[in-house]
């Protein structure tokens, strides 16, 4: 049963991530990444982390990818000249991916000194949110607080970076370029 669920969602994740890479339109790429991340969330749940799976669906597909879609539609960048549109280019991407995959698998299985297939028994403590919260709010309390600060800084930074660069002064109707001059009265009249 677990193997069947794993097989279905692993294949779904692989297939939809290939669509993310190959589709030329970023909107379709984003929608297909939703499928990938949802499949990975299902795998999180069967690995005994239901809370992280729920967070994955809420944060990634609910917030981050909606933000991506919003920006794609705002910037209107739906058509893209893909580098890998030629046969040779696609072959190059495939070879690059295979090399990276081979390197990762070598690193995973040749350098690991632990037997990978003897799992610890799945305990109630590991699966429950209570156990996770106890560790998060005691042992990892300081990183948790720092992440809160990081999110605040990110909100402020994103607001500043995406601001319109030349803002007319809302109260007086003056442009910042007007404020550079000494005063309008000193302009030579024609």
């Amino acid at each position, binding site marked *: 049963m677990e193997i069947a669920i794993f097989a279905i969602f692993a294949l779904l994740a692989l297939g939809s991530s290939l669509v993310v890479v190959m589709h030329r339109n970023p909107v379709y790429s984003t929608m297909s990444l939703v499928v990938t991340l949802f499949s990975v969330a299902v795998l999180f749940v069967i*690995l005994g982390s239901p809370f992280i799976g729920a967070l994955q669906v809420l944060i990634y597909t609910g917030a981050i990818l909606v*933000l991506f879609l919003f920006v794609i539609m705002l910037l209107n960048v739906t058509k893209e000249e893909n580098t890998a549109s030629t046969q040779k280019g696609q072959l190059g991407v495939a070879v690059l991916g295979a090399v990276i995959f081979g390197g*990762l698998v070598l690193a995973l299985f040749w350098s690991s000194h632990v037997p*990978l297939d003897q*799992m610890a028994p799945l305990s109630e403590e590991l699966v429950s949110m209570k156990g996770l919260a106890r560790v*998060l709010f005691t042992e990892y309390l300081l990183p948790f607080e720092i992440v809160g600060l*990081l999110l605040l800084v990110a909100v402020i930074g994103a607001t500043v970076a995406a601001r319109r660069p030349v803002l007319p002064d809302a109260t007086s109707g003056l442009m910042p370029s007007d404020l550079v001059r000494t005063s309008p009265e000193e302009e030579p009249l024609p």
Partner: protein
Amino acid sequence: MSVPVSWYLMLSAALFAIGAAGALTRRNGISIFLLIELMLNAGNLALIAYARQWGTHTGQIIVFFVMAVAAAEAAIGLALFIAVYRHRRTIDVNRINLMRW
């Protein structure tokens, strides 16, 4: 019969490789960003698989923090793309080479 952890690690490596190969070859900035999110998620899958293997919470906690940082990174990155698009009218990374030496 449960699935061995090594299968999850293989899947994670495959997702990471797909994301990395795409991120190195795409030219649209937003597509590259999407593929970076895919790579982060592949890393998360490996961490959760190791948490299952050892039966500890540490992997789950790290994934929690990675998700928070990914959310911050997405907000900042997309804001930067909006700012760049305003100035250059493109987010093609081959044409945003102002800071290239």
